[in-house]
């Protein structure tokens, strides 16, 4: 693993108040008013890149650290976090807001590195966006992001310019309803057939979860809300070619003329052997004859303000669908 502590001092960044990033207890207990360690900047993704950041809530155990995260949020977001029932739900909600704020701040789009100063708004369909301060000819670059979380994983995808939707789910998530009954009610006929053809119930369950995350990622990338794209109005097609290690994934809408469906490309990842992550991206350029360039992915596991770990290309992030190159 290539582990990069986020507290390495570089000239513009002041020395860390935490001599050992892992022992926050001893330092924070003395001085609760100490701010979080200054964030380390990161380079914006290039036009063809996708950045995936994720946090594992079970690895964030420090109560003082979580309090510091809370202090990064405006009152409305704190209230939203506290509105969840129970510690575990509140923690993943808090980490989701913290991840998106600290990650976007680190790109230093507006020259600042302050996660507190970011403002968010929703577009007319409810999709969250950054509301950049427009002053003196400042033209914000087209940073796109999307978040997804379960109680065991919080993830954020970032691109420059490409609309993005991501969805995460535990591999072993079980539906309360029978899978085929659920799929017949909510998915398309092709998808029901695809699931029905899988004889092993465990594999069928996993395939269902994969389809679900891919469909969610697509709708979130579109950003128009779920009612504008009910799940039974588009089919996710997974093509398994014997020669390829991972399958090709495409979306086909039932009313094709409006939505040019080869505008969207997909990646399906298995994270840490325990989660599926589906990513849907607006296609920027094609490699001639409609063939898409693979998705260039950089994946980092992080504990905001503490450490990052570059995990692309390791067995923490395995591509199981779509055309992906990991960097």
């Amino acid at each position, binding site marked *: 693993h290539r582990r990069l502590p986020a507290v390495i001092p570089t000239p513009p960044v002041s020395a860390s108040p935490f001599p050992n990033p892992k022992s926050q207890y001893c330092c924070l207990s003395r001085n609760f008013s100490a701010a979080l360690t200054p964030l380390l900047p990161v380079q914006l993704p290039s036009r063809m890149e996708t950045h995936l950041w994720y946090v594992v809530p079970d690895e964030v155990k420090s*109560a003082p650290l979580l*309090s510091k995260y809370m202090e990064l949020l405006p009152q409305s977001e704190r209230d939203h976090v506290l509105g969840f029932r129970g*510690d575990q739900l509140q923690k993943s909600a808090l980490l989701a807001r913290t991840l998106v704020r600290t990650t976007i701040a680190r790109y230093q789009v507006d020259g600042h590195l302050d996660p507190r100063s970011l403002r968010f708004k929703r577009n007319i369909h409810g999709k969250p966006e950054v509301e950049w301060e427009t002053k003196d000819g400042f033209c914000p670059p087209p940073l796109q992001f999307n978040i997804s979380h379960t109680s065991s994983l919080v993830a954020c995808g970032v691109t420059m310019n490409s609309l993005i939707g991501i969805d995460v789910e535990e591999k072993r998530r079980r539906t309360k309803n029978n899978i085929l009954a659920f799929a017949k009610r909510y998915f398309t006929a092709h998808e029901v057939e695809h699931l029905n053809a899988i004889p092993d119930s465990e594999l069928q369950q996993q395939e269902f979860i994969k389809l679900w995350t891919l469909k969610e990622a697509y709708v979130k990338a579109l950003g128009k809300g779920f009612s504008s794209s009910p799940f039974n109005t588009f089919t996710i097609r997974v093509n398994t070619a014997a020669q390829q290690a991972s399958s090709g994934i495409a979306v086909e809408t039932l009313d094709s003329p409006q939505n040019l469906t080869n505008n969207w490309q997909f990646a399906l990842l298995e994270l840490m052997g325990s989660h599926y992550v589906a990513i849907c991206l607006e296609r920027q350029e094609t490699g001639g004859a409609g063939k898409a360039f693979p998705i260039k992915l950089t994946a980092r596991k992080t504990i905001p303000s503490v450490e990052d770990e570059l995990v692309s290309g390791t067995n923490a992030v395995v591509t199981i669908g779509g055309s992906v190159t990991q960097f």
Partner: protein
Amino acid sequence: MASITRASVSMPSLSTSVNQSQRRISVMNSVSFPVSGRSMIPSLRLQRGLQVCCAAKQETVDKVVAIVKKQLALPADAAVTGESKFAALGADSLDTVEIVMGLEEEFDITVEEESAQSITTVQEAADMIEKLVEK
């Protein structure tokens, strides 16, 4: 598991009885309905725009609560009332769709995606069910 250093429960009402067939007394400490107690009799309440309509029957609300608790694997004595928001109880989008599917089966109705998206609380689900059942 680390805990947040402030009060973690902010639900506006508490149920003092776990027996759902008895009259339930709700304690409201924030903006809410003018009704101070719930009974088995359908009650009138004022909505926005001063429209007067019937709130869903307690029986319907109770059935919705049961389906929600089952889907989210909540203990039987978990405090879930009309005001409870699915998301705050831990429902993600898959849970919400499963809850709607459970409601369709229980009440023999069909819920369109557009309507399903607007249900965020137990009460909203119960109200929608009653409208659909009337048809």
